[in-house]
């Protein structure tokens, strides 16, 4: 029991050190630009279809689900604003981050884990390439920058989904829908949510890399690394979300 607790804290300590190391390596030239761009492509562009479909469905479903309640109050005209608000503030960031935790974090964990197991990382070190810089920094940076972009797409597509959902039962042209959405939105809704997504991205990348990079030798540890990467990344997302809400509440 005590050993387990000690191991947990050991893991957390190792993770914090891992983050420190990331920042140390980040500002040390040279930056592996080509690898970074490639990771951006893999994390950002390749996840777009998944995020787009999820966002669209979320917007559609949210509209259809909220409609009866709002119709009861005769406040159907608030539906677009309400859906857009909940999408931008909460649902799109969290859903996108969770999707990316499943796709990106587990991918990175499995990739780095298998590299570690097959001793490719050691081989890099031998051939005078800093594996941390080449593998970890690029991936974490890419996910930190790409997840917010994916969330922006999810917001837009989700609002579009809301438009489609609204038009299932009643008619509203896109211009009026747009103005209804933007009437409700303020900077208070957009900026905290956007800042939050950078943290989501950072932790998705970092946890994936950490789990892969610290995988123990043995084939089964690859699966373990991928699994725990998804679990801890998802958990981290919710914890960050909670902290972000409290901070936003405090400031605005």
């Amino acid at each position: 029991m005590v050993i387990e607790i000690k191991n947990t804290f050991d893991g957390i300590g190792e993770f914090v050190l891992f983050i420190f190391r990331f920042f140390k390596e980040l500002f040390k030239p040279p930056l592996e630009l080509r690898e970074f761009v490639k990771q951006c492509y893999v994390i950002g562009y390749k996840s777009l279809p998944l995020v787009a479909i999820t966002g669209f469905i979320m917007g559609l479903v949210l509209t259809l689900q909220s409609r009866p309640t709002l119709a009861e109050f005769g406040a159907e005209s608030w539906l677009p604003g309400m859906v857009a608000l909940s999408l931008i503030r909460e649902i799109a960031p969290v859903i996108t981050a969770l999707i990316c935790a499943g796709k990106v974090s587990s991918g990175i964990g499995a990739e780095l884990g298998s590299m570690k197991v097959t001793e490719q990382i050691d081989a890099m070190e031998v051939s005078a390439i800093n594996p941390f810089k080449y593998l970890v920094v690029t991936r974490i940076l890419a996910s930190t920058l790409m997840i917010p972009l994916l969330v922006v797409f999810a917001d837009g597509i989700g609002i579009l989904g809301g438009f489609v959902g609204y038009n299932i039962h009643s008619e509203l042209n896109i211009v009026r829908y747009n103005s209804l959405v933007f009437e409700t939105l303020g900077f208070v809704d957009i900026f905290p949510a956007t800042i939050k997504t950078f943290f989501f991205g950072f932790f998705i990348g970092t946890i994936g890399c950490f789990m892969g990079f610290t995988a123990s030798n043995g084939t089964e540890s690859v699966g373990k690394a991928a699994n725990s990467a998804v679990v801890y990344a998802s958990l981290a997302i919710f914890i960050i979300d909670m902290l972000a809400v409290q901070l936003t509440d405090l400031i605005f």
Partner: protein
Amino acid sequence: MKKDVGFRWKLGMFVTAGILFFAVTIYFVGKQKNLFGSTFHLKSHFKTVSGLKIGNNVRFSGINIGTVDAIEMISDTSVMVDLIIEKSAQPFIKTDAKVGISSDGLMGEKVLVISPGTFTFKSVKDNDILTSKNAIEMEDLMLSMKKSIDNVALISDNLAQFSYKVNNGDGALSKMISDEQFSSTLQSTLVNLQNSSNEFAKFTESMNSGKGALSKLVTDEKFGKTLDSTMMNLKTGTKGLNETIDAAQNSILLKGYFKKKEKAAKQIEIKKANALKKKNTTIIKSDSTKRLLTPKDSIQ
């Protein structure tokens, strides 16, 4: 290298589209808040802004044309409100336009309303100061409401007093309502009145259609005519009588008697005249005072 180019443009497109989309969203939200686009400022002084906040809408002819940018206290009785207005609304706001604070619905947000001025005035310029109208405060509304409620209370009080008096007092109204005896006397009076009116009805009926002298006098034309002719006869009769009396005075047999009577009458008149002369000289003074005191006498 070939492979690199293959994914790079996709990545570029993805990033560009994402950033563009974000920028557009920010722009539109910002436009809603009047941060971008061409705008100008207007100022106005208020005694009280009654809960107006920065970011509240400014309306002109019912259209949102701007927002409240700043609210500053200038002195203990005046607050300056700075407004950001869309440039496109500038030509329509004249220098004599007035700014008032009202609310969007009973419980809604406060809204600044610019009421249009006269078209002969010039358009406003940047940083012009518009005159303000005092807002209708909820407190004032409540105060006037309280006044009318007080009045209602007073009226209902009076009404209660009135009904109490009616129930318990000694007045005619209350007796009518509550006193049994009074009502029974009233009833008997009414019965009497009915009886007498019945009698009267009978009387008038018999007068209209009866054969008595009175009814004939009122209704019968023939009777009237005969009455008239009777009168004529009477007239001629008395004329004849006068003539016979004259003739009697002049006749020899009765002359002596009439002469004696004349003499006696003359003597009495002379005596009366002497007595009157004496009386007049003595009473003249008192008589004049009497006249002053009672003017009725003077007429007589």
